[in-house]
């Protein structure tokens, strides 16, 4: 099952590799990982999307908590929460007809960036599931896809 884990950790060199190393050393899955400074610049907040059965997720949380640079770990998918991800899709103009363009323009979660050549870049900010749906709809015409990985926050 898919789980989103939020980790608050010391903003120190090496902290990221401790987390990444833990996942590879213990064969835990990692679907995406995104990290940036938190409200307190001495700490970073990391969102990890992973999957596994309950026992595996329990171990992931405990092992993360055991790392000395980690201040707090929470699994946010089990409660009300918001998740967002950003994706860029580069598409050749030739592959987009007017009808499709109109559909993109009306979608409030999409932004269209023109380039100097014959391509457009569609920016999509939405939940990972919606991003998956959108990417599925353009998979035959996408030249390049760049995804950020999800960030999440509890909303209750």
């Amino acid at each position, binding site marked *: 099952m898919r789980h989103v884990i939020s980790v608050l*950790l*010391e903003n120190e060199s*090496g902290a990221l*590799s*401790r987390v990444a*190393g833990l996942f590879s*050393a213990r064969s835990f899955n990692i679907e995406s990982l995104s990290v940036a400074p938190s409200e307190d610049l001495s700490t970073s907040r990391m969102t990890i999307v992973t999957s596994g059965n309950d*026992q595996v997720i*329990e*171990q992931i949380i*405990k*092992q993360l*908590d*055991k*790392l*000395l*640079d*980690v*201040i707090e770990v929470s699994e946010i998918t089990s409660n009300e929460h918001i998740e967002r991800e950003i994706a860029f899709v580069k598409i050749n103009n030739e592959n987009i007809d007017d009808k499709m363009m109109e559909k993109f323009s009306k979608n409030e979660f999409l932004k269209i960036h023109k380039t100097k050549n014959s391509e457009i870049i569609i920016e999509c900010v939405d939940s990972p599931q919606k991003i998956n749906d959108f990417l599925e709809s353009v998979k035959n015409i996408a030249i390049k896809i760049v995804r950020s990985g999800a960030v999440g926050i509890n909303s209750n």
Partner: protein
Amino acid sequence: MKQNTDNNKEKYTGAEIFVKCLEAEGIDLVFGYPGGAVLHIYDELHKQNEVTHILVRHEQGAVHAAEGFAKSSEKVGVVLVTSGPGATNAITGIADAYMDSVPIVVFTGQVRTALIGNDAFQEVDTVGITRPCVKHNFMITDVKDMASTIKKAFYVASSGRPGPVVVDIPKDITEDSCEFEYPDKVHMRSYRPNIEIKNNDINTAVKSILNSKKPVIYAGGGVINSNASSELTELAKYLNFPVTNTLMGLGCYPGDDDQFLQMLGMHGSYEANMAMHDCDLLIAVGARFDDRITGRLDKFSPNATVIHIDVDPSSISKNIKAHIPIIGDVKDAVKQISKQIIEKKLKPQNIDEWWAQINEWRKKDSFKYTQDSEIIKPQYVVDRLYDITNGDAFITSDVGQHQMWAAQLYKFNKPRRWINSGGLGTMGFGLPSAMGTQFANPDSLVCCVTGEASIQMCIQELSTCLQYGLPIKIINLNNRYMGMVRQWQEFFYEKRYAMSYMDALPDFVKLAQSYGHIGHKIDKPSDVDDAIKDAIKQKDRLVFLDFITDQNENVFPMIATGAAHNKMILS
């Protein structure tokens, strides 16, 4: 060198501060080996008498010595090595300490900060290489952080579940100077080793304990690390519960006590493994259910309620689901359970039937062997060593058959007497760890039970033993095979003995002599006793006893990998 600043506060170099920190931490012994990146530190060590430096012959030996020192005392072991190969040679020892939760601090030199990342001479990414096998590691990038980092290193290594901490020190940091003050407290917001035990968990555990008709206490190295042996023994004796120990836990419960079922696991006793399989309550104390203990997970203690006491939350329900987890210091937890039971004079169930069953299993006498031929049985040597030393020696071991025989047959009555490499299974551990043990216990008898394959992996430390006059007794069970490898090949590879034969062995007697020690070769069972007795009489000399033993002897019982506890091979 001391420099006066404007406000008259004295300044010290990083190297001076390093030595002052060790003094402040109460460290009087450091195992190490010098090299370019740590020369400033060695120069400062040379100028003082508070901290004694022990020169080993290989950095792996330094770390194992520090482990032996830490395991046989209650102190932190300290290592000092240089950058590059100094650090990489230390890795095996660091990984060993990580697997067996041994509190050590390893200081590694590093190239100058300006050179880091330039593939400089003797540069290696020590922090990166050691990251997966340390409890934590640090690199000091400013001399002002030296004292606080060293303080943290000792605190982290010795608190909670102990483990190795590496501190990487670039050479220029040992030249830079600043004022010195050793902090008396550590504040780390992301490290909280003192977990308060939940009353509810204790109460639930107490109920299960009082209701059980077929209980087993399964106690591991955590009991020793937490110094909880006497508390656990008192509780077990009050309850009349059977106790088994892991390889790492031997000595935490008296080995010659009637309630002791001997060691459990792959080469554990029949009664211990059968009791684990059939029990209705499994009380795991400071143990981690590793694969050599559990065998086949889905057949492990199928009918038991599991109480698991451990200081490390990640050990709980990692392999075996704990029905009643108790997270916290083992000693505190056992005390709290005792308070609820012993102080209130509560009585457990009558478990006479359970004991009758266990005594039935005991009749198999699963560690038995027969010394009938003219060839020395390896078990016989361990047995005689136990008798002659009254079970009171410090025993270190290497890894393999000899280790299992020592664990099975030397009955440890006190904690911290059995020093071995359990988790990592490091051949080469025995001799250097015996050095550390002897340094921590200078007036005690220290014996290293080893084999002709293992001993050669750190044989160079015989030179260290001579330099410091360490009167270790080496009990070499020489069967001319990597015995445990040969045993597996006999059982599982149709006797195809690929590379397990030790061809071209040295003459260990001459080898010992050339290092300045006493060596004896013993090949008759009737000579075993005198050889051991004579060796012990040599109070100030290392004696290397080379016992020529039966090549075909195997360690029994044995649970094959992936088999259930009640599927033991007995002979």
